[in-house]
């Protein structure tokens, strides 16, 4: 189904084992040690580490520099790239730069609108969107060609990923259609939005399976542990495209404050167990937001540890 790249993440997915990825958010300063620290916290528990790209439109150390740092530490990095801040020249330039350091995973995103971030008055770019970025990486990798037509010999060996949000509406069928479009563009793996509404996610996966799309793209289910009921309520009310059912709020809020984090972790582990049984789920993407130290525990308790060592 896929062009084979040197990506260790691809190797894990293709081996049939559940893959595990997680992500680290770069700091809002020039402190490179932060990424090193976060990378070390999770490295033994995951197959690849995403580095977010100015997430929620807040300016941070660039994803590319952090990915290079992880790579130099001997870790498998996944370069997240949004099309909000860079035109096709800059995007392709960064892809070539990442590949020149042996980075083999990319997550193609459009990105949050700058309205959310710390520079709401800035100009956005959106020269391409996520699907056109997928097409671009594929063309660079498979044809050795830039969008402008220039042909080159040393190609970026990228395993191409993207995001999918089954919960954004207006209905699950359209969200499957949109993912089908990403598949048509050349995406190979998907990291989903955080899953809290199991019914909707299962409906989404059923439609994927009915259309055979699960054989064309590897779905990594998005898991974000809730730290407390405040976070759960915030995500329910304030974060666009996230669907937190009331019973999750009741469950986290139903235990004493000092036990809510533990309850959140247990919920995440239960979600992993349940999702392992869903046809088409090929792994997990654990987004422990500023809670990287808990990734290991989630992976272990989720029965995903130790990570298989592939030759």
């Amino acid at each position, binding site marked *: 189904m896929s062009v084979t790249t040197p990506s260790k993440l691809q190797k894990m997915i293709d081996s049939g084992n559940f893959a595990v990825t997680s992500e680290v958010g770069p700091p809002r300063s020039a402190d490179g040690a932060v990424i090193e620290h976060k990378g070390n916290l999770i490295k033994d528990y995951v197959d690849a580490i995403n580095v977010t790209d100015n997430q929620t439109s807040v300016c941070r150390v660039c994803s590319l520099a952090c990915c290079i740092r992880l790579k130099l530490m001997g870790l498998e990095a996944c370069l997240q790239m949004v099309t*909000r801040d860079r035109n*096709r020249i800059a995007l392709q330039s960064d892809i070539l730069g990442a590949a020149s350091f042996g980075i083999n995973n990319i997550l193609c995103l*459009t*990105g*949050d*609108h700058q*309205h*959310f971030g710390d520079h709401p008055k800035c100009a*956005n770019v*959106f*020269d*391409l*969107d*996520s*699907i*056109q970025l997928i*097409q*671009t990486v594929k063309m660079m990798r498979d044809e050795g060609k830039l*969008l402008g037509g220039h042909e080159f010999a040393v190609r970026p060996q990228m395993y191409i990923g993207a*995001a*999918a*949000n089954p919960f*954004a*509406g*207006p209905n699950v069928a*359209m969200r499957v*259609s*949109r993912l*089908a*479009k990403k598949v*048509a*563009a050349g995406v190979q793996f998907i990291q989903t*939005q955080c899953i809290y509404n199991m019914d909707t996610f299962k409906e989404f996966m059923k439609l994927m399976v009915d259309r055979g799309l699960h054989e064309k793209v590897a779905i990594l289910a998005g898991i974000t542990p809730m730290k407390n009921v405040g976070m759960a309520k915030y995500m329910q009310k304030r974060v*666009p*495209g996230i669907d937190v059912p009331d019973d999750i709020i009741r469950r986290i809020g139903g235990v004493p404050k000092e036990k809510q984090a533990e309850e959140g972790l247990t919920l995440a582990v239960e979600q992993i167990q349940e999702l392992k049984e869903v046809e088409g789920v090929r792994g997990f993407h654990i987004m422990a937001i500023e809670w990287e130290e808990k990734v290991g525990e989630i992976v272990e308790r989720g029965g995903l540890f130790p990570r298989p060592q592939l030759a």
Partner: protein
Amino acid sequence: MIKAVPKPLEEVLGQVKDFTKVLIVGCDGCVTVCEAGGMKEAKVLASALRLYFTQAGKQAQIDETSLTRQCEKEYLAQLSDKMDIYDAVVSLACGCGVQYMAEMYNNKIIYPGVDTCFLGVNEERGLYVERCQACGRCILAETGGICPIARCSKRMLNGPCGGSDAGKCEINKDIPCGWELIYERLKTLGQLDRFEKPVDPKDWSTSRDGGPRTIVREDLRI
């Protein structure tokens, strides 16, 4: 049509308060329709400036007029007899009209009296909404007659993004998601097959990205 809003009175006052002879020039085109810069608004602004000067105890001559269109030389030329009388002119036309007047009357100080906003429609009186970004290569045939460049906050050609929620845009719950509108319209038209076909990167050189644009219609030029 072009949509504009009047600049705050304080801003206009800040520009003209040190002059004694000021002409306010409305435009009978687009800005009249959106009630930002026609003859009516020119009169209102002129009255407000007169009141300011009177209250400040200053002698000033504030006059108003309006032209059929400020984006055409023949109409702008109608001011040539009286331009010398005034120290400054406030043009209530869109940015095109203000600039064209400044080009024609090179030694005259011309101030804009409106903020030019977008190309839009009149949903209701006083409610104007953008519909077109004049990108220079219309794709409405492919998108069910709804423009993703004007109506998606990220001008995506392969939307919707994952931030749309209950049919609304992630940046504001009052803004419909342009791509959900497109999806629903394509469904109505029986053209949903278009939705799953990736759209290639756009050639933006016909948009603002290509620099100031010019149309040369040889068939119309004599």
